[in-house]
């Protein structure tokens, strides 16, 4: 799979796809999208990059180990639930900001939760694919 075209294409595709994934994540509450779709798109971006440029450089680009990403994502999701527990006494009760933000609309713990989902999905997918790709070396 050592193709110059693919390598170049993925290099340009990566930022685009990542941007789209963030967009899908943030808009998810109102339009089709969300943490899952966003996370999957982002991982696809990295997977394509890994196919084009190798797993090693994909890892370098990601900077953080995908396994750690999983831990962080779970923690973020967990914390978003616990915020609700602390604030209202019931686990996962949504807490919202009072004013609107551009693109996203209101900020709230469900969004935080969705970010956690996003991180977990990226971490999981990349852990799996990287482990498989490297396992055969």
């Amino acid at each position, binding site marked *: 799979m050592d193709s110059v075209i693919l390598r170049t294409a993925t290099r340009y595709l990566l930022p685009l796809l990542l941007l789209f994934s963030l967009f899908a994540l943030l808009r998810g*509450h109102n339009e089709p999208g969300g943490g899952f*779709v966003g996370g999957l798109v982002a*991982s696809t971006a990295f997977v394509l990059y890994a196919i084009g440029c190798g797993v090693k450089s994909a890892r370098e680009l990601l900077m953080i180990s995908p396994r750690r990403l999983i831990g962080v994502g779970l923690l973020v999701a967990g914390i978003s639930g616990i915020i609700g527990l602390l604030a209202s006494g019931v686990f996962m009760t949504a807490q919202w900001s009072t004013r609107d933000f551009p693109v996203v609309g209101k900020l709230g713990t469900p969004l935080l939760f969705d970010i956690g989902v996003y991180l977990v999905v990226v971490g999981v997918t990349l852990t799996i694919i990287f482990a498989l790709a490297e396992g055969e070396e």
Partner: protein
Amino acid sequence: MIGAVLAGFIAALFAPWIHRAARGWAGWLIALVPAGLTLYFGAHLERLAGGETFSAVYAWVSSLGTDLAFRLDGLGALFALIISGVGALVIIYGGGYLKGDPQLGRFYAYVLMFMGAMLGVVLADNLITLFVFWELTSISSYLLIGFYHSEADSRASALQALLVTGTGGLAMLAGLVLLGQATGTYTISEMVTQPQAAQSSSLYGAILVLVLLGAFTKSAQFPFHFWLPGAMAAPTPVSAYLHSATMVKAGIYLLARLSPVLGGTDAWQISVTAVGGVTMVLGAYVAWRQVDLKRILAYSTVSALGMLVFLLGIGTEYAVKAALTVLLAHSLYKGTLFLVAGALDHETGTRDVTRLGGLWRAMPWTGTAALLGAASMAGLPPLFGFISKEVFYKAAYDAPDLAGPLTAAAVTGSVFMVTAAALVSLKPFFGARLETPKHPHEAPPSMLLGPVVLAGLGVLFAFVPSWVAEYGIRTAVEATLNHAAEIELELWPGLNVVLLLSLLTVAAGLAVYALRVPLQPWADRVDLGARVGPERGYRVLLGGMLWTADRQTRILQNGYLRVYLMTIVLTTVALTGYTLLTRADIEGVWRLPDARFYEIVVVALIVVAAIVVTQVQSRLAAVLALATVGYGVSLLYIMFGAPDLAMTQFSIETLTVVLFVLVIYRLPRFATLTNRAARLRDALIAASAGVLMTSLVLILTADTSRRHVTTFFSENSVLLAKGRNIVNVILVDFRAFDTLGEIIVLSVAAAGVYALMRLRPERERREALPETRATVELSAMAEADPPAEPQAADSGR
């Protein structure tokens, strides 16, 4: 009273320590517990004779109607005295018999535990509590029969005894529960006051059979008797105690105890008398033809137990009196003889009567005890055995029905008992002196005390029969019958038919003894298969069970994943399909196809791709066809208002293809491994599941007006949850808990993949295939669990 029962268990806990501390004196020391109990129960005799009873109730498992209820009455006291008294002698005896054995501490513990359990049985006033102790005696017996656990024979005998008595015990449990149901109480003393409750119940027959099964197995009645000779694998003091004096009499106790509730009916009389009679005759007949001292005694015990059951079956006041008298006499003389046999074995190194002879000089005390015991067993005056034989004959002779045949049976059994008695006493001690493996000495004091005391009591009781009658037998009979009774025992009843029968019995018995060698070939011919029959049945049953177990497991758990899958699919289809056809009204209008062209195209694409998956030979083609199905499904999602699903399905499909390619790359090509018939069969099974699912969908889509919670989501998504994409709002807010679980699943899956790829057993790299028989190094073992040991491949097809 609970203290008396628990004393044995508590002492059992400490026995090994006492043994370690006191060494040779431990037996004498530990025997203080049962000796103390003997005094304790003895002290109650006076007041029991005065008509009092003693009871104590402690709440226990009230939810299941089980209280620790104990009640000391005459019957219980008679048994309790035998249990604790013989127990004390046996423990002292055991200290000598097993001197130097590393397991002696355990012996004390088990015997004490048994004693506690046995006392529990005879004192319990609650059926379930009685059963609890009953089972504990079985397990103590198991541990004691298997005392010489290195011997395969001991282990097999222990198991046999446990299985036979245990099975009977479980039947009895069912019987006792039914009895409790029928009478409305589990308290025995209450039950006894209303016998009609059980006997008029429709369950009476079942109760009787089940309870009798328990009693008969425990008391070694034909055809369950064979475990008792097997139990002789136990150390001799154990045989004397459990398998002669006490545990085997638990069944007798139960029959006596429940006779007011269950007895008196024709069914009771016929079955109990018949079983007892057959056991009595058979046991005695087999006894005299043994050569092993302990086996002679074991079969004669079987016979004596049969005698007791026989008497309880007759069930008259006199028969009950006879039963309890015989019981007392038997405990004394049989205990003596077992302990003598043990001493002979211990001192000479053999129990084979053909190799024993002329030992009187070497072992005069033992010999005296043996003679007294045997004379009592043979029913010679002036011994207590004579008195018991007299009342026994009289009970049979006076039986209300069939007195003739019953008396004949009683006499026949007794004749052979006399022979057996002669065999164990005359043969070893008199006649020509035979060489034995060990040079014989008189037994040590610890081993003489038991036989001498028991034999002495046999003499003593014969001279104070009225005292025994007043304090031992009468109260017990009254407790058994639940009404007052007049009891007399006499050493010399005067010249009558019964006495003549006794004389005849002794003469015939001695004649058989004298002629035993010439009679042997004849006897072999009349073997009746009694000894082999039921035991062979046991073996066939056990073997059959093992065979069935093995076979069914090989068939069910056959190792073929596809067969497992097939079974599960067929079970699902059969159960669901059957239920659908029989329990549900299938109706409703099936919507006519209103599909649009492009929808039909997508549907056709999916169907074709799915079928292609099953047919292609190339792995890559299969993966691509699978992906086509996946993309097709995501098209369906987008067409029918589920963009989120479509996007998710689409991106996951893409990643899945990458995954498959990464993995399948290294896997082998497809090969067609099954033949056409198997493929057709599988296709039919799979199709049946498909048809079921299609039908379900058709039935269920007929009515989709059941949305119940959806309205809440659509109404509140924007207002309360501040999101317009309802699916996403459900995922991150309304049902975010699901999503939390979901990302955990993902995380674990990732961790799993990572671990599978990176964590491999070290030796896998070295060996292409693991060896078939693992030789596990100790060092590796101590460090970590080894892989499962592969077993020899002996069931492969």
